[in-house]
């Protein structure tokens, strides 16, 4: 589904990604973790070409994202993405947030789009908030709406970029619950997150990044049982010990 091959990226002379290679198969859940500044958010943004990269290739569903001939809006419409800061559109009601891209990108009728949006809103437990504006919801609620908004496009896979990092602790679980449910339904997911509980519960593989490189790419059991690299061991020890 997602194949990342030898991807390198520079900001000027500073290398942020070094020869990253991995893949996410259909219905697989891959968690990407690592210390801040390790390039994990940059890597996931390369997958739907929100960030350009200078070397290597990323193929999503058979389409090379770095190919200048690729119709990026069309490709991105099929790849759902959830951001750290939710990024709902503040001037639109929740209903419109859910419907707008369906209408303007997929060409669905308004009634169909709203209908679909409300069904997904119900699924994330927020049906009663449909008429509100994003600024009137809590962070956890906004993030659940953001997930519903991405799902409304019928994505073939979902990218999560630190979806719980901006949330107050008591709101993290409501978002993780939605993600766990998605994983159980067989959604292909690539998640940048520090939530190791989530990784343990649903991940198939865990990728550990440090200084722009993929240091460890292992099945979940191996990663948590016996990480091979010292850096991954230190990282795990730090985040699991409290």
């Amino acid at each position, binding site marked *: 589904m997602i194949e990342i091959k030898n991807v390198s990226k520079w900001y000027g002379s500073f290398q942020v990604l070094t020869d990253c290679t991995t893949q996410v198969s259909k219905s697989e859940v891959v968690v990407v973790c690592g210390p801040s500044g390790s390039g994990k958010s940059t890597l996931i943004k390369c997958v739907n070409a929100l960030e350009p990269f200078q070397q290597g290739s990323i193929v999503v569903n058979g389409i090379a994202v770095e190919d200048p001939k690729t119709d990026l809006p069309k490709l991105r419409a099929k790849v759902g993405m959830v951001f750290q800061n939710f990024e709902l559109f503040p001037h639109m009601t929740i209903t419109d947030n859910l419907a707008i891209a369906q209408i303007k990108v997929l060409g669905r009728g308004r009634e169909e789009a709203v209908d679909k949006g409300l069904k997904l809103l119900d699924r994330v437990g927020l049906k009663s908030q449909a008429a509100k504006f994003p*600024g009137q919801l809590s962070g956890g609620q906004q993030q659940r709406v953001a997930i519903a908004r991405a799902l409304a496009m019928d994505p073939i896979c979902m990218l999560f970029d630190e979806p719980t990092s901006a949330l107050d602790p008591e709101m993290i679980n409501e978002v993780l619950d939605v993600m766990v449910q998605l994983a159980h339904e067989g959604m292909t997911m690539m998640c940048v997150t520090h939530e190791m509980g989530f990784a343990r519960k649903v991940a198939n593989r865990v990728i550990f990044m440090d200084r722009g490189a993929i240091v460890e790419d292992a099945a979940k059991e191996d990663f948590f049982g016996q990480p091979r690299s010292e850096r991954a061991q230190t990282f795990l020890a730090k985040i699991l010990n409290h």
Partner: protein
Amino acid sequence: MNYHWDWMFFFQETDDGLKYYDWILSGLGWTTFVSLASLAVALILGSALGVMRTTPGRWLVGLGDAYVDLFRNIPLIVQLFMWFFVVPELVPENIGIWMKQDLPYFVTAIVGLGLYTAARIAEQVKAGINSLSRGQRNAGLALGFTEWQTYRYVRLPMAYRIVLPALTSEAMNIFKNSAVTYAVGILELYFQYKQIIEKTSQVLEITIVVTLAYFILAFVMNRILAFVEARTRVPGLIVGQKGGKGS
């Protein structure tokens, strides 16, 4: 003070058979017309330029920046004189003659005032767009929007809300700046003001009336835009706050 007050002079007949208050009303009409038309030109062009200056296209940004630098750094009255007296000499001869003979003065004045104000509006629209988090654009793109659609549906609606107070000042300024167009022969309020002073020497009365007229024009514009501001306020959002609650 031995000034001779005479408020009734407004109802005296002038050389052209009209009353002085007719002159004022006519000036008020021209001021309103020239200002609103210039504002329309400025809003459309200024928005386009403001958007251009936030795009990833380097040529577009350069072009927009150059426009703003040029039109913001030259006094309005000099710009008007350039449109009236210099530009007709620089364009091909037949166009120059058409500009001098057939093109109504007010069109040139509206273009001049509009292009000048557009540079200022471009600056504000750019600031508004740049005040939004980069994540808003990314969120739009990630949903499959084109770059243009992220402006149309995501960025501009918020940017305009954020800069509406600044645009309000600009809309009020344009009424005041329109007084400069008297210098290129527009028979607007300031022109009539000067003409009435020359004819009657009732300086205080006419100054009071014209001052009030400008004040009311600007004030009405202010109230209209305050109403727009209230109507477009986003529930749950403090103006100027970026989307989301996160870091």
